[in-house]
Structure formats: structure tokens, C-alpha cells
């Protein structure tokens, strides 16, 4: 039993354990920054995973919720001088409402139709955020003031690392819950075949709405923290389709519907991006796109040949190893 637990959760222990110990070894801000981003993008992708992986409602508009979180936190702290934590709570509440609307759409639309409607939703928010100059500062974006302290989220790199690590562990726990709990089993049923799930007594519609709503709220948390961490909110970034795709990319490469997958994908994508950006920044900005060409190609290959992603590959190796021992 214990060894089984270790085999199943060992990967998470390694990933999160390494992140926890990293500041003891390195104090280099470049490195710590990369780690924070890996954990944060992993968490945002895990949030996407709740709706798209576990509940099977594939969204390409999750940047909408990320942006809602980012704008709530940024506006409250930059314009109204409130703590970004208050903004975070506000962002979560707004995303709960928006998520319920999108979740309702998932009951009327399936597959590509649902994905298209989520893109349209995020585009509407993008336009509103970039054009409503009086309130959002429009397309220039909002600089977020840095005020040292935990309440104002003006933190050093090490503090940010532990904050995002806590976030990551929390989201990971949510996903593990979705794998092992009653709700998780029922959600898997809905994902696999909605009619069959319904016939077996599962309130599939309510469950889907709940999953998309929860996923939206978790995404908003990431957006709010990200805004404080980066210190600037650009509507064309936080509401972009690219960002939505990034959540999907991390998760699919790492393993859709697996708990650790989003971070596995994030480790690969974020670190290569960070490396390319550092190496080519200023010289040839276009070069940073190289990692996206690679990941676009990898995405095509993964969905076709390795639909369970890196986590699935690891599981396959484990079974093979177990069989070899037996």
C-alpha cells in the first residue's frame, strides 16, 4: 500500500520537493523566477485540466478567467488602493459567475462548438478590457504598484516561490480529489459518456457546470497572483487565445486528466521559453517563437501517439517495470 502510494505520488513528491528545496541551494533570481513561473503556469494549467481534462469540456477560452483574476487584482490595487488579496477574492467571485455561464453553454454545445464559444467569450472580454479606457486603462495595460509586504503581495523571489508552491500543492490536491473521490468517478463517467452517466443516476449537467465553474475560479486565482508577480497587466496577453492554448499545451503534453501532468508540461515549456527568451532577448525577439514551433509539433504528435502525455508514459514504464520484476 505504502509503496503503491509512493509509486503513484512519487512524481509529485520529486517535483514539489525539488521546488521546496531549491532556494536552499540556489539564490539566483533568474532561476527562482523560472521556478515561480513553472509552478504558476502549472497551476493555471491544472485549473484548465479540471474542466477540460477531468470533465472533458475542452475550453480554448480559459484566458478569460485568468484575465478576470488579473484585472480584478490589478485594478483594486492600482486604482482603489485595496489589497490584491481582496482583488483575488473579487476575481474568484466574478469568475464563478462567468464560469457558471460558460458551464451552462457546455450543456448546450459539445466538442468543437463548445471550444468555439469559449474562444468567443474570451475575445469579448479582450475587447472590453482593451477598449474601455476610462476604467481599465485600455490597451496600454495597467502597471501594478509594488508595495512590500504579504498583505500587498510585494514579496521577494523566495517568498513568491513558496507562495506558488503552496498554490501548486493545493491545486494538485484538488486534482487528486477528482481522481479518487465519488465526484471524481462520476465526472469521469460524464466525460466518457454523458447519456450512460445520466442513466446511472448521475446529475451530469449540474456536475459539468460545477466542474467548469470550479475550473474558472481556480484559473482566476492564478491570474490574480500572476498580475502581482509580474507587476503589469496587458489585455492582449491575459485575454489572448495564445494563453488559453498554453494552459492546454502544458496539460496535454504532461498528461490530460492526470494530476501531475500540468506541471510536467509546464517544466518543459516554461523552462525552454525562459531559456530562449534570456538567450535571444533584444537580439532577435522572433527567435523566442522557436519553442512554440516545437511545441506545436509536439502537441500534434502527443495527441496522436501519446494521448496520455508524459504522465501516461511514466505509468506505462511503471507497469512494464512491474511486469519485468514479476
Amino acid at each position, binding site marked *: 500500500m505504502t509503496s503503491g502510494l509512493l509509486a503513484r505520488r512519487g512524481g509529485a513528491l520529486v517535483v514539489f520537493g525539488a521546488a521546496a528545496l531549491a532556494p536552499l541551494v540556489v539564490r539566483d533570481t533568474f532561476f527562482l523566477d523560472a521556478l515561480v513561473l513553472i509552478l504558476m503556469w502549472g497551476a493555471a494549467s491544472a485549473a484548465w485540466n479540471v474542466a477540460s481534462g477531468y470533465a472533458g469540456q*475542452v475550453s480554448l477560452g480559459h484566458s478569460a478567467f485568468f484575465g478576470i483574476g488579473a484585472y480584478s487584482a490589478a485594478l483594486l490595487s492600482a486604482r482603489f488602493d485595496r489589497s490584491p488579496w481582496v482583488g483575488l477574492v473579487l476575481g474568484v467571485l466574478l469568475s464563478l459567475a462567468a464560469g457558471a455561464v460558460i458551464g451552462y453553454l457546455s450543456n*448546450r454545445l*459539445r466538442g468543437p462548438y463548445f471550444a468555439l*464559444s469559449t474562444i468567443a*467569450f474570451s475575445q469579448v472580454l479582450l475587447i472590453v478590457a482593451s477598449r474601455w479606457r476610462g476604467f481599465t486603462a485600455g490597451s496600454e495595460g495597467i502597471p501594478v504598484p509594488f508595495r512590500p509586504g504579504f498583505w500587498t503581495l510585494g514579496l521577494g523571489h523566495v517568498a513568491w516561490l513558496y507562495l506558488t508552491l503552496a498554490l501548486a500543492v493545493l491545486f494538485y490536491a484538488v486534482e487528486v480529489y477528482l481522481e479518487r473521490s465519488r465526484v471524481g468517478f462520476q465526472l469521469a463517467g460524464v466525460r466518457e459518456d454523458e447519456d450512460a452517466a445520466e442513466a446511472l443516476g448521475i446529475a451530469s449537467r449540474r456536475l459539468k457546470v460545477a466542474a467548469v465553474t470550479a475550473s474558472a475560479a481556480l484559473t482566476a486565482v492564478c491570474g490574480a497572483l500572476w498580475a502581482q508577480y509580474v507587476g503589469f497587466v496587458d489585455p492582449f496577453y491575459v485575454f489572448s487565445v495564445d494563453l488559453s492554448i498554453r494552459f492546454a499545451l502544458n496539460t496535454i503534453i504532461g498528461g490530460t486528466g492526470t494530476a501531475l501532468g500540468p506541471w510536467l508540461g509546464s517544466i518543459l515549456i516554461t523552462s525552454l521559453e525562459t531559456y530562449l527568451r534570456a538567450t535571444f532577448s533584444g537580439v532577435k525577439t522572433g527567435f523566442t517563437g522557436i519553442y*512554440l514551433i516545437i*511545441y506545436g509539433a509536439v502537441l*500534434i504528435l502527443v*495527441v*496522436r501517439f501519446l494521448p496520455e502525455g508524459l504522465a501516461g508514459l511514466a505509468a506505462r514504464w511503471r507497469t512494464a517495470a512491474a511486469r519485468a520484476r514479476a
Partner: protein
Amino acid sequence: MDPARRLGPAEIDALAQLAVSTVLLGGIYALIAVGLTLVFGIMRVVNFAHGEFLMLGMYLAFWAFALWSLDPYVVLFASIPIFFLVGLVSYVLVMRGVITASHNVQIFTTVGLSVALQNAALVAWTGDFRYIRPWHSSVVLRVGATAFNLSQVVAFLIAVALTVALFAFMKLTHTGRVMRATAQDREAATLMGIDTDRVYRLTWAIGTAAVGAAGVLVAPLYSVYPTAGLQFVLLAYVVVVLGGLGDMVGALLGSVIVAAVEVVGSYVIGAAWKEVLYFVLFIAVLVFRPAGLFGQRGAEMLGA
């Protein structure tokens, strides 16, 4: 505008201009959208990389003009076979393997293609906005009180000609009928000895050629940059969903509707907010008439 005011000559002129602009824009949107709806109708794949082929068409026009001073309308003739070939290659390399896979696999295959192409353009040609301004883009035609630019008129005429040609192909040729039969019932088509792989290959290549040509046509009218496809493809989705996914005639009507919303929207509430209008329209149609304004209900629940 004050609705109580009676229409004076100025308003009538404005209306005429709006109507003409709508038609011109609608024709171009139709060519952009028709490939998307063709691919969906026959292959049941929503191509999220559609906009990237458009973007590549725009770059083709740009480089041909910048390097060899070739007019986009000359490049157009070359672009059709070139993009037909691009379509064939991308089908064989990317799409063939997932044609019977689940929706989610297909969505992310084309999303992956989109990401790769967009960033290939970014790396190769940087993110700079580029423009081509051949002589005809600065010629203004005036008919009565309406004025429009020559490039736009020519683009419209060619787009309509190409769309009509595609319709004729689908309706009148044997291959076109075979393609439509496959769209009706994939399994029955296989049983009747139709080579469905060939049909899909051809469909994808035609869809790509149509949108590539559209890219060349719009290059003189808009700026060219790696993510240029996105704004058009979002439009094309709106068009195609309005017309009913897979419905080619519907796509034509959808194009005119979207163009009208855009033209009238920019006139009434300003260019900045017009996009909100058609995305709201888009979501409303998805929710209330998911099979399109003219389609039968229920298709979206089959996940068709």
C-alpha cells in the same frame, strides 16, 4: 444618430456607402469562410489552423511584391496551386492520422498546427507589421455618392468568382458529388467503394487553396503579421456558425450578415466596439440556434 430625424440626402448617401461596403466585405469573408465550412461539412473537422493558411497567403503576396514587385493579382494565380499543395502535404503529414479520432484529438491537432505555423512565421519573418501598397490600393472609385478603393473591388470580384467556381465544382462535377456523398454518410460512401481518404485529401487541399488565395487577396487591404490570421479566422467561425457549420450557401449569407454587422457597427458605435457585436451575435447564435440561422436543430448535440 437621432432616429426621429428624417433621412436627408447625407443619410441616404451614407446608407448607400454602408450597403456597398457590406457587399464588398461580405464577398471577401465568404471566400475566407467557404474553405472552413467545406472542411467541416465533409471531414467533420473544425480547422483551428484555418487562419494560419490565410496568414501564409498574405505573406506570399507580401514577399512576391517586396522581392519581385509582383502584383498580388498575379500572385493569386500561383497561390492556388501552391496552397493546394500545402494542403495536400499538411493533410498527409498531420490530418490523415486523426481523421477518425475523437473531437478533442482533432481540435488539438489543428491547434498544434496553428501554433507551429504562426510561430514559424514569427521566427522567419519577425513580428513586424508589414504592408503592401500596389498602385491599385490608392485608386478610389466613385459611383454616385459612394466611394471605394479599387483593391477592395477587385478582391471582391475575384473572391466571388472563386467562390462561385467552388460551388460549381461541388454541384456539377462527379468529384464534387462524391465529396458531398461522403459528407452525407461516411460509412455508406466507403461501402459504395468511394476512396474516402482521397476525398478528405482533396477537401483539405481545396479548403487550404481557397483560404490561401483569400490571404493573397486581402494582403493589400490589411497589415501582414504572424497572428494576422487570428482576427480573420474568428470572423470566419462567426460566419460559418451563422450559416450552419458545413453549409456552403449558409456561409455566403453568414458572410453578408457579419459584414453588415461590422460595417453598420463601426458606423453607429465606432470601430472600436464593433467586434463585441459580432462575438455577442456569435455566442447568441451558438446558444439559441446552434445549427446556424437556417439549419436544423440538434446537429450540435450530436457533436456532428
